[in-house]
């Protein structure tokens, strides 16, 4: 216990407006959807953890091994060889499949975090003793970062819990993550973000956002949602298919009821089952929606899609045309 008590860091910080988001001029690239801020109309965190929802998201993501094990941008290596029996080869494939599932784990969908600065003590006697704040961080091993005790002594004698921004800064100072920068990279701010998205580097932006931010950080939610919007706008869903980002994107599109482009893409690429799965997801997210009453468990995939086009879609004509051409193709194939 003595060791734990001794292993404390002492660090003087700048005034709060500089200490927090590093550059006071920076602001997240998008205003958050209210459902990602409060639980008033729905609870996205619980929805995301719902077994049926996860099943649908997994199905929509798909698993293209050629994509998951595609050539990576890294240093080349000398190949190694092994001699295997049929049985061993089967096991090797099973292992690779497991690794593929591991790489497809979705980053958690969370609401914006609520402020955590609870006042612990007020010591007016210490008022004016120091000009600056003191931040005390427990850097002992074995404590999860989110519950690590970090407190701040204000110059006016108030002892309080550190804010999220202060926590992020102290954690990066003492328990550095090499993939995370201590200041928000400018690429997450406008106009840089739009420029990168226009190039179609969606996976780069999403991966880096995962590395840089906590999943309930306002910036994480804003950056990812901005990227999802851009993907939807350009109908570039194929770029993020078979990646861990496809599921949260589908959930977002269902929450904000902006699934027309996705439905159109699914129908034009002959994924009727996936389209029906997205409509099911929409009904799970918005049980009060009009099309939810039209279908039930026994309805076919076609019924789900038709109900969506009839009652939910904004781009009715285009979707109808896509469904028609899909039907024509199926008929031509069976004939």
């Amino acid at each position, binding site marked *: 216990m003595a060791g734990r008590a001794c292993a404390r860091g002492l660090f003087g910080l*700048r005034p709060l407006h*500089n200490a927090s988001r590093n550059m006071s001029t920076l602001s997240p690239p998008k205003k958050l959807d209210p459902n990602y801020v409060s639980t008033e109309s729905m609870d996205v965190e619980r929805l995301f953890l719902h077994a049926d929802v996860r099943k649908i998201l997994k199905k929509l993501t798909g698993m293209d*091994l050629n994509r*998951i*094990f*595609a*050539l*990576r941008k*890294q*240093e*080349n*290596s*000398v*190949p*190694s*060889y*092994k*001699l*295997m*029996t*049929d*049985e*061993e*080869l089967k096991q*090797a*494939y099973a292992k*690779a499949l497991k*690794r593929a599932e591991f*790489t497809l784990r979705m980053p958690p969908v969370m609401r914006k975090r609520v402020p955590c600065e609870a006042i612990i003590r007020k010591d007016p006697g210490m008022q004016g003793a120091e000009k600056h704040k003191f931040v005390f961080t427990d850097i002992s091993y074995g404590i999860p970062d989110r519950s690590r005790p970090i407190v701040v002594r204000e110059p006016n004698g108030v002892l309080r819990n550190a804010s999220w921004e202060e926590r992020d800064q102290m954690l990066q100072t003492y328990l550095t993550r090499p993939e995370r920068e201590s*200041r928000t990279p400018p690429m997450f701010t406008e106009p840089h973000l739009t420029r990168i998205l226009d190039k179609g580097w969606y996976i780069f932006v999403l991966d880096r956002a995962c590395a840089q931010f906590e999943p309930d950080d306002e910036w994480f939610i804003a950056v990812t949602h901005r990227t999802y919007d851009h993907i939807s706008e350009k109908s570039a869903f194929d770029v993020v298919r078979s990646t861990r980002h496809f599921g949260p994107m589908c959930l977002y599109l269902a929450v904000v009821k902006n699934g027309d482009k996705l439905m159109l893409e699914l129908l034009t690429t002959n994924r009727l089952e996936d389209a029906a799965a997205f409509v099911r997801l929409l009904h799970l997210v918005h049980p009060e929606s009009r099309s939810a009453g039209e279908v039930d468990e026994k309805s076919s995939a076609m019924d789900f899609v038709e109900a969506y086009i009839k009652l939910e879609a904004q781009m009715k004509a285009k979707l109808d045309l896509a469904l028609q051409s899909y039907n024509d193709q199926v008929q031509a194939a069976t004939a």
Partner: protein
Amino acid sequence: MFRIASLTGQFCRMSLAPPIQVHLQNRSTSFFSKVTAEHLWKGVTSVSNAGRKRGRASGSSRKMARDLNRGQVLGVGKINMVWPGLSAPAIRGQEIIRQQKLEPDPEREKRLTALRNKHVGVRRTKIAPLDRGWSGGKAGGRYIGPPDPVGDENFEGFKSCVVKMGMVFVMRGNTGRTRQHKSIVIVGNGNGLIGFAQGKAGDARSALRKAKNGAAKNLVYIERFENHTVLHDFYTEYGSCKLIVKKKQRGYGLVCQRVVRELCKVIGIKDIFVKADARRMNTLSVIRAFLLGLHNQRSLQSVADEKRLHVVEFREEYGYFPKVVASPKDEPVRTAEEINPNEELDFNMIINGGRLVMMPKKKTPFYWNLPGYQIYLKKTDPLKNHRTTHLRILKRYGALKSFLTIREEEEQKQASLKSS
């Protein structure tokens, strides 16, 4: 004295003194009047017999005589004069031409020097620095173009490299010591074909030509891995030359002995590591050892057939996804029960015939273990990230500042505002 006075003008006029009378001996005959000009020139420009034997009369050490009389015409000199009967006809028409001083010709001197400096004889051609080969003026490592066409075959895309060039002597009873030029040339198309040959001739150029055309007649094809490296690691030796060859990834480059490097270039191997253990480096042995090793490489299919098992490739850049590259062709794959537990199944062991080469340990500088170096490391340790930090600060603040200096500046500014 007069000359000095005339140059310095009136300032030196006071120093003019009467000339000193010197008695000069006068001889009627001299060295110059006895010997002819031809003899004199020969004495200056020729090489003595002893010198000729030592080779001073031939090759690059030969001194060429330069004729300083080139461009000089009798009767024409620095002063531009008309001499009737010498530099001009005595009578032109009815008129008798008289001696006459013309305007000085300033271009004459320049013309003469240009003419004198004009090169005569063979001049060395200059080679671009990148084409000069391994070192200096030697031919080793130089590329000498494709071989000469044979029938319809033009050897397009082929290149040939000189790997050895030298002189060989032979002593015979009747001819004495005779010398010949000997060269070894390798020829390849950079796409798997390779050949090498020796050529001997009286002159260097013929020796190179013979070797080059001989090499083009002895081409063999070498299998490569994805057209960039060897099929697998191997050890090979020929004579005194021992080579440890390692397969390498794309972008590694050619890290090997210079003859092996040129061989790789003409074969089309781009990435390889070769440790050459040759205390007496014999060019032919190196070539033979390397080509023999390349020739004896085994294909993955042969390993699969021999062991009756799948050969599966794993690569880091593809996330170690198993890729079957060879399966037994005719017979079914063995099951786990059919495999003897003591059987060797390590791919590298099989492909090297049950023998793996232990790489020599890399040598570290001697001073790494000295206390002074340890002190140096301790002293410079805090400075190791200075440059990156420097750049980061410059990028953030536009100058070498920190949040502390900025805070001080702000406080000073506020204090000055208050006081004013």
